[in-house]
């Protein structure tokens, strides 16, 4: 236990401040007057350095990597590639499934990324951050961006697999679909942040994953909406995963429900407002 690296005698520690000791008055006067030059950081403390460190944390987390990269890729190989020669309406089934799985991967990455705030609150890290100039909005923005980047990696992994396994997928289709997936994943980043502020740390991530599974299933990501009974189909159109999936598949050329755009915007507004409310409630006790 006693690996305390501080066994050097105190005298060496003090060596630097001997000068100070001879004239404490002058030194502290200088120090106190230097305080006037201090300023508050721009953008509420948001910076590229923080983004880099947060991304590094993500990449170190093996569980995150499994869920956001390996799982969608494996699912594609199992469910997508095997349907390479099938057609779903006018689109190749493998491509359809590939886009759905990329969407799912991005959803997982962004939701769990957002829900990370629950864990950081439990660790007392949020409290630590409250003792810095970092504004909650800047903190959340960093979480959202980092989880969207991870979602993007998930999309790229699935699409590269799709493009290299002989599925007919024009590059422009993949790129535009991929960009739409990444763009709409902000809905789920907001969803994750909201859950992160509302749920206790022990189960925030689990609850988030479970909710995502259900939403993806009825929202038409795992199976086409058409297999569900009419009532469920109608309900499904009002759930958050539906709009995101529809928009992601729009570049495939099979046509899409224009209400999906409204759905995505409304859900985004709901989750952002929910996060803001939860955050306000949270800061009163940190």
């Amino acid at each position: 236990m006693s690996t305390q690296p501080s066994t050097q005698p105190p005298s060496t520690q003090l060596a630097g401040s001997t000068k100070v000791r001879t004239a404490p008055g002058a030194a502290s006067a200088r120090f106190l007057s230097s305080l006037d030059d201090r300023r508050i950081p721009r953008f509420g403390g948001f910076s590229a350095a923080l983004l880099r460190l947060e991304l590094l944390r993500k990449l170190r987390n093996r569980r995150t990597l499994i869920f956001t990269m390996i799982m969608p890729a494996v699912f594609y190989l199992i469910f997508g590639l095997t349907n390479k020669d099938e057609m779903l309406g006018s689109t190749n089934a493998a491509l359809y499934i590939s886009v759905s799985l990329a969407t799912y991967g991005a959803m997982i990455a962004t939701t769990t990324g957002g829900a990370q705030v629950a864990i950081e609150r439990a660790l007392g890290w949020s409290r630590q951050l409250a003792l810095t100039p970092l504004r909650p909005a800047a903190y959340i923005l960093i979480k959202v961006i980092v989880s969207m980047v991870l979602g993007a990696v998930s999309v790229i992994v699935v699409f590269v697999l799709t493009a290299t396994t002989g599925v007919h997928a024009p590059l422009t289709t993949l790129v535009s679909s991929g960009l739409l997936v990444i763009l709409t994943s902000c809905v789920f980043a907001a969803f994750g942040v909201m859950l992160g502020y509302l749920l206790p740390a022990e189960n925030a991530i689990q609850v988030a994953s479970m909710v995502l599974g259900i939403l993806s299933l009825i929202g038409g990501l795992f199976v086409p909406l058409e297999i569900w009974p009419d009532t469920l189909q109608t309900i499904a159109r009002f759930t958050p995963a539906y709009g995101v999936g529809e928009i992601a598949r729009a570049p495939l050329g099979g046509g899409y429900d224009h209400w999906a755009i409204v759905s995505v915007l409304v859900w985004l507004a709901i989750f952002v407002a929910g996060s803001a409310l939860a955050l306000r409630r949270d800061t009163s006790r940190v």
Partner: protein
Amino acid sequence: MTSQTTSHTPASAVPVHRGAVTASAVALNHLTKSFGGITAVNDLDLTIRPGEVVAFLGPNGAGKTTTIDMLLGLSRPDAGDVEIFGMPPRRAVSLGYVSSVMQTGGLLDDLTVRETVEYTSAIFASSLDTDLVLKRAGIAEIANSVVKKCSGGQKQRLRFAMALLPDPALIVLDEPTTGMDVTGRRDFWHQMRADALTGKTILFATHYLEEADEFADRVILIADGKVVADGSAHEIRGMAAAKTVSATLPLTDGEPTAEAGVAELVDLLGGLAGVESIDVQARRLRMRTTDSDAAAKMLFDNACTDLEITSHSLEDAFISLTAKGA
């Protein structure tokens, strides 16, 4: 005790001018905070001058942490206000005027020690060099270790490093040495004292009396959300040094002069240096004094018998002072 005078010098020698003149590092005015029906902090007033090293001493539940939370802007008082160098706490925090070392938590397991410091450094507009801070906190050697693998003491040093980073004028420490070994505790405080010399103000909460006694210039005893004693470490130790001397008064067989004789003796005893209280019940006299020898001699010379001297530990003084506040 020379250190006391040294660290007080900046306070008196250097008045702080900034816009409006602010002579105080911390000013708590009528601070009140309750949770449910329980009043945690009760109309607390306190002023700390720049350069002071102040121990906030009190039993658990005395309101130390609640006060510190309000002082740092982590929670809002129900009534009263906080000023740190003449500004609201949130602003003082954002400018890096004040930083804090927390008791537990507050670290990310998946970053290395260096990365954790870099993270904090990236937030502040200006901060000290990462390597310098790591060295000062005595964790330069473990800079590349992952936080998860650090010992409790190492983690506390890391929290300390993060608190040093903005080069604050005021450092607030909530039970800072919990989980440290003796060497760690020494080094930690040694570092804090060196910092105090450059004009830093230090406020630390503790329930270790020795820690308050050894490292603080000024000790503030708090109980039930109120200040019950406020003085130099020396004065507080003086309170603790008092002993109880008791003796049986001489038999006077109901003579009319008996009452007068007792009163005379009590007057005499009261004139001795260091006497805090004298109490006579039936024929037994009990007194609290810091100079028990002088009291014992006088009692003996006046034909008192059954002399008893009991000493009080720091603990006793602490308990009696904090219980009085109730």
